[in-house]
């Protein structure tokens, strides 16, 4: 069985195409007597000359031979029908009855995975002309797009996802739910390493595995870009765990890395009176300043690292012995105030575009968490070890076996995910024979 679940159309275009069948199987019947009037519409309609109205509903039950398809054949003259919405219809008007199915098109999971959950997530085209949302409805429970008027025969109806909802490249990932189910199938049961386990336990260890792997094995793909405000601070992302790179972007779009400074911070500034005594509020709590003096001074310092390094460069004669390389750069510095949840930047990056590359744990967002297929085996081994090591009466050799297997699987995943390509390595190593100049 193939693991790809989407059709090529579903993957590349994010769409499903249908062909309209127009008024096929419809019948026209005259009304017998008008209904409703201006300002007072009615739902009751009396039909005339209804021969030929075949209602597409099968009839089964006691007394009917199962091998015969019984269906309502017709509704006799003078029969009343009720509309679901009141209308004004004159006498002897020809009404056309079109099977509802002619206007309903069901979206399938081989084109959309997951299926749209609301009407705004996709656009609908008929013969490449976009349709307004008033011309169709969407029923989530049945994944059905229903048009107010049935599209004409041979019309091409295309339901297409918006760009934001496309999931290119998702074949490289496996969903958390699939991992849990695969684990239960392969590892749990009589005669297997784990005889019985609660699904919640598996889910716990699977999610812990994803968290741990996100920290140092999986490739971090999270980043945020902002223009640095005058406050020279940036709020930590909602799903922030740790940073991998903080940089500003130059005019050519190149990222200039910044380095953390260890020589300043943003402590809590305790308010004092003129006698240097602490000031308390009416609750007896110590009052604190909104901004610490340390941060104020660092922020307002115009003699930035860059200027310092430039000034040093001017008098760059002779040896530079004893320089501290952590501060010997002019790209700017930052520090993270973990209590305040903000990154503070040095003043020389004021007004610049800042990009923060960071690590999350892979579980922050709604929906099914995913893990790269290179790390799939590592997750299984992690779960197995997690479950076995927390149970009593499991032989120690079993726990050790899975500990080793987990370690090996994680290492293998890390090597694979480090994305080493022989050609790229060769290119890098070509500079190896260069003489290092001093």
């Amino acid at each position, binding site marked *: 069985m193939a693991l790809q679940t989407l059709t090529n159309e579903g993957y590349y275009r994010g769409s499903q195409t249908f062909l309209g069948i127009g008024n096929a199987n419809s019948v026209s019947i005259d009304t017998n007597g008008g209904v409703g009037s201006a300002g007072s519409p009615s739902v009751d309609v009396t039909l005339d000359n209804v021969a030929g109205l075949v209602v597409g509903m099968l009839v089964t039950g006691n007394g009917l031979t199962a091998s015969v398809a019984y269906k309502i054949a017709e509704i006799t003259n003078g029969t009343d029908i009720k509309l679901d919405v009141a209308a004004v219809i004159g006498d002897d008007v020809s009404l056309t009855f079109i099977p509802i199915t002619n206007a309903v098109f069901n979206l399938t999971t081989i084109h959309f995975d997951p299926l749209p959950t609301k009407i705004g997530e996709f656009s609908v085209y008929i013969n490449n002309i976009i349709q307004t949302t008033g011309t169709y409805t969407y029923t989530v429970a049945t994944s059905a797009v229903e048009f107010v008027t049935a599209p004409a025969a041979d019309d091409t109806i295309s339901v297409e996802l918006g760009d934001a909802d496309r999931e290119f490249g998702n074949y490289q990932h496996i969903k958390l*739910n699939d991992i849990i189910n695969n684990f239960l199938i392969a590892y749990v049961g009589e005669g297997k390493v784990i005889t019985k386990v*609660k*699904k*919640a*336990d598996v*889910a*716990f260890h699977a*999610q812990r595995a994803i968290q741990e792997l996100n920290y140092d094995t999986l490739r971090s793909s999270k980043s945020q870009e902002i223009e640095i405000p005058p406050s020279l601070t940036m709020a930590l992302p909602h799903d922030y765990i740790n940073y991998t790179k903080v940089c500003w972007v130059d005019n050519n779009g190149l990222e200039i890395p910044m380095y953390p400074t260890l020589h300043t911070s943003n402590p809590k500034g305790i308010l004092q009176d003129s006698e240097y005594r602490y000031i308390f509020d009416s609750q007896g709590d110590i009052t604190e300043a909104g901004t610490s003096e340390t941060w104020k001074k660092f922020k307002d310092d115009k003699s930035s690292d860059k200027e310092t390094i430039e000034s040093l460069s001017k008098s760059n004669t002779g040896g530079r012995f004893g320089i501290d390389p952590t501060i010997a750069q002019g790209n700017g510095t930052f520090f993270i105030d973990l209590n305040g949840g903000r990154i503070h930047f040095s003043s020389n990056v004021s007004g610049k575009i800042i990009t923060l590359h960071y690590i999350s744990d892979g*579980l922050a967002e709604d929906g*099914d968490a995913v893990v790269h297929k290179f790390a799939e085996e590592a997750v299984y081994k992690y779960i197995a070890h997690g479950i076995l090591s927390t149970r009593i009466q499991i032989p120690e050799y079993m726990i050790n076996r899975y500990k080793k297997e987990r370690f090996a699987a994680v290492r293998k995943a890390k090597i694979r995910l480090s994305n080493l390509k022989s050609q790229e390595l060769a290119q890098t190593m070509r500079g190896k024979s260069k003489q290092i100049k001093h």
Partner: protein
Amino acid sequence: MVLIDTVYQKVLNILNKEQRGYITPQEFNLLANHAQMDIFEQYFYDINQFERVHGNQTEYSDMLDITESRIALFETSISLDGLGRKTDNAVSTNDTDFSYFSLPTDTYRIGVISYKNNEAERVTQNEYLLLNSSQLTKPTNTRLMYVQNGYVASNVKYVKIRVFGLNELKHNDDSDITITYVRKPQKAEWAYTNVNGNPLYNVANTVNFDLHESEENELVIKILALSGIIIKDPSVYQVAVTEENKNVQQEKS
């Protein structure tokens, strides 16, 4: 299905050998259901036992497969009845009520409860509270949980469940909730009409044994053993028990 009349005739024949005794249809019906439930309940323990021994790959003779196929005759799958219930079992269509779902009254053992093809796992109330308090273990719409309660109304015992996904499932979700369960065997009855003081077999009102055909001998032996007690003949009981033990030894050793 095992024909109850065949079993009854066999039991009578064996009992009447050497004029030992006779059991009436009422007595037989009582013993028949006792024997049926005894055999039926034993299936579940047999599966537990056979799971722990090595099976075999033969087509017809793997004991686990055999026992599972016997239980399969009673397995049923249905969507819930479309009625959410309040704590007092009254039908409710109010979304704000707790949504207890009543299980079918012939439920013997619950198998799988699923919502839109996602299996719900049975947890106890305290486990649910604990699991729900952790972001890593709380139920989701693809990893559901259910809590089971009992409720007695008008001397009828109902089994009720509450199903938890991302939110607790309400009455309007229950057509998507499917339950697979093992139903109780039908109450077997050798029906008769009284003709001149003699019971005359009434096939129309008879309810046969629900068990697999292969259980006919087992039923005869079990009913015989119980009959031996009724007619106070230890030798009948002894022979039946010996026969049963021989079968058990052959099947399970």
